[in-house]
């Protein structure tokens, strides 16, 4: 004999009222401030700059998300590649300005470099102007709300990402030194592709009816971890001499930071996906974590 049980009322899972995810503007302000502080202080060790890089890439991914939500017509990757296109131009211009002025050197170590911010400003201007052209009725007329702001943010995020990556490998922001380190080794091509992937891949992979902003941005964290691992290996290969005897330690800490970020955020992302799904059934090929 079975006893009828009262139907259990399932509680609606409330979205967590925590720090994550911050509002779009909040994330932009946090990432911009962190990114700019880490960029203008080239003497910081690589793994500290990597924190700035992580936030800048997450900011870029958020901007890609809010502009691509309405449908671009050409696929999400296009706007991420646009961001690195502007980013590489802005970064070269900024480092060119840094080459002639705006830096303060104490005892042979470049402590502060504000010249690069000129390049950031130019990239923001290019992004804003192309946003106006893209949205204007008289020109491309894409009619996407907030495209001007999105493209400006993408230009700034792309530029900051390139500047941070270059200074992580070369330890300086002067164009001649960066060209001889980052460009000669070919690391720039890797940066070009991976920065774009860090920005466009999260939304490109997660878009759809059940897209969740907090979960999408976790993917961007994970990709920034991958970038840090490989940049650490590049630093070792280039014998990152800019910190003197601490060069190897610096690169090792960067790799460690990358591995930790990658593992933690990959696990977080998978867990969030499992939580959002109706049921998780294993195929037997991979052990189910739940």
């Amino acid at each position, binding site marked *: 004999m079975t006893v009828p049980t009262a139907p259990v009322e399932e509680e609606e899972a409330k979205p967590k009222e925590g720090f994550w995810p911050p509002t779009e503007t909040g994330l932009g302000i946090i990432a911009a401030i962190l990114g700019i502080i880490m960029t203008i202080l080239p003497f910081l060790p690589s793994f500290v700059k990597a924190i700035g890089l992580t936030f800048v890439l997450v900011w870029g991914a958020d901007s890609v998300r809010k502009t691509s939500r309405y449908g671009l017509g*050409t696929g999400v990757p296009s706007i991420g590649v646009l961001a690195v296109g502007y980013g590489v131009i802005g970064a070269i211009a900024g480092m060119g300005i840094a080459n002639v002025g705006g830096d303060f050197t104490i005892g042979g170590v470049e402590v502060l470099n504000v010249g690069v911010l000129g*390049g950031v400003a130019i990239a923001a201007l290019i992004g804003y102007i192309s946003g106006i052209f*893209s949205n204007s009725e008289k020109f*491309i007329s894409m009619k996407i709300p907030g495209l001007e702001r999105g493209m400006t943010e993408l230009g700034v995020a792309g530029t900051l990402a390139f500047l941070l990556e270059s200074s992580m490998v070369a330890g300086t922001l002067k*164009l001649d030194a960066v060209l001889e380190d980052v460009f000669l080794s070919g690391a720039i091509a890797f940066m070009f592709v991976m920065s774009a992937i860090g920005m466009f891949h999260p939304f490109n992979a997660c878009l759809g009816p059940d897209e969740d902003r907090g979960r999408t941005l976790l993917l961007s964290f994970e990709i920034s971890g991958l970038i840090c691992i490989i940049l650490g290996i590049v630093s070792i290969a280039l014998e990152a001499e800019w910190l003197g005897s601490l060069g190897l330690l610096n690169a090792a800490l960067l790799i460690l930071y990358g591995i930790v970020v990658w593992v933690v955020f990959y696990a977080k992302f998978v867990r969030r996906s499992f939580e959002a799904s109706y049921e998780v059934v294993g195929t037997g090929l991979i052990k189910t974590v739940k």
Partner: protein
Amino acid sequence: MDPITALLILVCVIVGGLLASLGVHMIPVGGAPAAMGTATGIATGTVQLMFGAALTGLFTASTVATFFPTPKPDEIVGIPLILVALSGAVGAMLMLSFTMLFANMLYVFGAGVVPVSGRVEVDPITKEPQAPYKTPQTDGHGVPNVSYISGWIGAFLGGFGGALMYFVLKNYAFPAYLFPELRAVDAETVSAAAAGIAAAGIFVANAILSAYNIGGTIEGFHDPKFKRLPKALISCAVVSALCGLCVIIASWGLMGGGA
């Protein structure tokens, strides 16, 4: 920095950007519908196609550019410029031709559809009828003759523009003699890498703005969307000019500032 050199860089970057934009409007891009065989064009995005073609063009152009010595700061060279730009155009054409050919083979032998245009009743070049071969409810299939020829011209223009930017940036914005402390081979490599990445960045920006103008898919110059071209050209000219300004600033900084 020499004002004439700066002007040359600016003009060549703007011309390269405009050619990139024009090229994007002429290559047959099908996007997601073409992946299901229900629209004319190659089944991928504009960015992937044009960037792939331009990068192949940059490879051929940079190979040909190694045959010529770096010109002196105030020397304007004509023949090497044209040869390098043409070799870039040929590289881009080859890449796009193979892509279109194999896309067509997949459509014809794999999906079993006839390459046919969805926008015109009669092929404007070969005068072949199109409408009877089109599956109802679709927008054409594969890469028909007119789109193939349009794609050739587009890849030629895009590759020419990309290689033009590359040659000017390599020899006038980031020339090898700016790196005297490196070995000669390394100096050439640095110069080529900086020019290549900067040219790729400018090219991508222009190609993507043009891709937004055509809304992601186009069949070629016979497509009604081609009439939107002037709007993209104006936008690309302004954006290219700003990008050219960035490169001039970088080059000015690399040369140690000053007039």
